[in-house]
């Protein structure tokens, strides 16, 4: 018997507009995940702009991860201009990035993922928990960098508004307020039964600094992959993480030295081998759905890390360093771990401190091939068990959500031949 399954649907409950198409015919399956979002030309927009403006523009790529883009572009430009960043300023920016990471995971799990597993009734309870956690997390961010999104408290190499012990303490208190809700959500997620799926390409990439999701102060960047450690440099990042353009989508896709791979919370936990609850350690390396386990574990561990770090900072004199304007010219790479995975910003700067070239590689772009492969594998196995088209559709959509894609970040340029 060879039944044909054709699924083509807009994926709901993900950031942005995207379409998933799955065709299962005979023994083979094919999945494509595409976006028809129009031009979001950030790499072109920043050309010719002053370096100091670029982090503000880059942070507008996505309101959800504005800190991530702000920081990645700051790191790249600081490297390009030779600006040194004070140790504690780097840590504060790290904390801000991780607060956004927690906030992202909480909202993603509570509002977007859990409805797949707990249904309509259970959903309401978790949505409330997620929103209860969301509010203090955003307040903490506001305390540290002046705004909930699109940070304004710091600029290249310097802090704009003074941060004192009381700000750090207030932020830590907000985190304590959020902790019980994050813990509740994390526990509920870790108790879920995931659909069965064997990872078709267990190939991951994450920054390898131990116990650090993000690199404190600009390079060198080492990536952990199942095949060993790779140093990511300006010279090789395009060949290590190859971006390719496909006809059917306005967002690009990535290969790791020719192969599909995944990034994100699951990759980070596998790379650092820390914070992995014993119960989920097996599925973490074999099942793509387990990214939600990883997010749950990571969110809670990060809250504790952030409280500890803020307390430590608030108990002593801050070393913020002296800011210098840097020397125009040169180029720089900024690599950070953000909620959805690895984010790379690269800039080349003119002698008059204006941007000559910009390149942004986002985690969703890196995950897409892997996600398509997993979706095809899942659809084939479900179809062979005789599930209907509608049922298969539900599962593959849940799979896409587990990867937590963000389309606004993924579509950054759609010029043919580039």
């Amino acid at each position: 018997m060879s039944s044909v399954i054709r699924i083509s649907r807009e994926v709901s409950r993900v950031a942005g507009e995207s379409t998933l198409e799955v065709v299962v015919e005979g023994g083979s399956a094919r999945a494509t995940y595409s976006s028809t979002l129009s031009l979001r030309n950030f790499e072109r927009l920043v050309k010719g702009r002053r370096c100091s403006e670029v982090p503000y523009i880059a942070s507008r790529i996505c309101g959800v991860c504005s800190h991530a883009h702000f920081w990645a572009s700051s790191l790249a430009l600081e490297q390009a201009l030779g600006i040194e960043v004070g140790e504690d300023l780097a840590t504060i920016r790290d904390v801000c990035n991780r607060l956004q990471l927690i906030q992202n995971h909480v909202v993603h799990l509570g509002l977007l993922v859990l409805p797949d597993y707990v249904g309509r009734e259970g959903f309401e309870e978790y949505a409330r928990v997620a929103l209860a956690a969301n509010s203090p997390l955003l307040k903490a961010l506001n305390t540290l960098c002046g705004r909930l999104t699109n940070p304004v408290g710091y600029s290249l190499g310097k802090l704009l508004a003074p941060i004192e012990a009381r700000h750090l303490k207030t932020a830590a208190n907000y985190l304590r307020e959020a902790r019980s809700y994050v813990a509740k959500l994390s526990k509920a997620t870790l108790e879920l039964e995931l659909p069965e799926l064997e990872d078709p390409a267990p190939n991951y990439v994450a920054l390898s600094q131990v116990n650090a999701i993000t690199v404190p102060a600009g390079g060198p960047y080492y990536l952990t992959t199942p095949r060993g450690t790779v140093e990511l440099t300006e010279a090789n990042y395009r060949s290590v993480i190859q971006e390719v353009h496909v006809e059917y989508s306005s967002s690009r896709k990535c290969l790791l030295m020719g192969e599909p791979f995944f990034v994100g919370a699951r990759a980070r936990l596998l790379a650092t081998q820390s914070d992995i609850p014993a119960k989920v350690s097996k599925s973490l390396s074999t099942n793509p759905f387990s990214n939600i386990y990883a997010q749950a574990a990571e969110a809670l561990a990060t809250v504790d890390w952030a409280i500890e770090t803020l307390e430590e900072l608030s108990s002593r004199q801050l070393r913020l360093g002296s800011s210098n304007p840097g020397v125009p010219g040169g180029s720089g790479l900024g690599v950070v771990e953000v909620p959805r995975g690895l984010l790379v910003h690269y800039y080349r700067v003119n002698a008059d401190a204006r941007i000559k070239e910009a390149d942004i590689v986002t985690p969703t772009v890196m995950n897409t091939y892997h996600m398509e492969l997993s979706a095809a594998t899942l659809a084939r196995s479900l179809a062979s068990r005789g599930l209907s088209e509608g049922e298969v559709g539900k599962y593959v959509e849940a799979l896409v959500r587990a990867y937590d894609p963000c389309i606004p970040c993924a579509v950054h340029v759609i010029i043919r031949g580039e």
Partner: protein
Amino acid sequence: MVRVYVDGVEVDVPKGSTVLEAVAKAEREVPTLCYLGGVFSEATCRVCVVKAGGRVVPACAYPVSEGLKVVTEDEELARLRRISLELILASHRVSCWNCFAKSSCRLLGVARRLGVEGLPVCSECPLYGSSCLVARGEPCLGALTVAGCGATCPRSGSPCVGCRGYVSSERVWGEAVANHYRRYLKSLEDLRTAVEFFWTYLPPNLRRYLGGGP
């Protein structure tokens, strides 16, 4: 005592009271600008207009009469109040960047309430004098951008990027460029780049003030 009806609420006020006093007693509110209880009630600003017995009158000066029916809010009143405020702003010399009033500015308060966009972000910015970002050489767009955000960015030390759009008054542009930006910035070049961040369309006159051709 005289009985009046404010938006249907029955109140008794002493004879000789103004409609504004009756409105307050009925726990309703109308915006006022020039009115200063017991000191000034010459009804010059016309921001407190209400409908009393079907006629549009200034609440601060109009006396109550028995059985008077007062309407404090409707579309026509909102429009008239806005027009009054726009006329005041048109002849007001806006230079919030070096005005002492800042966030205690009555004009700003009423403008916000009536939805009139005539004042720049500088009116809400706590930075003043040498702490002003422009005075420190930053191309902050606060003097050209519509107020209402609470000056979140300058407050954190980050220059205003103009996300709320520009103030539509040509007088404000001229005043800001001539008396603020030219005073502190070496050239307007950075300002010209900064306005392109959010403002995809620049009116020709604003472009002219910034020196970027027609």
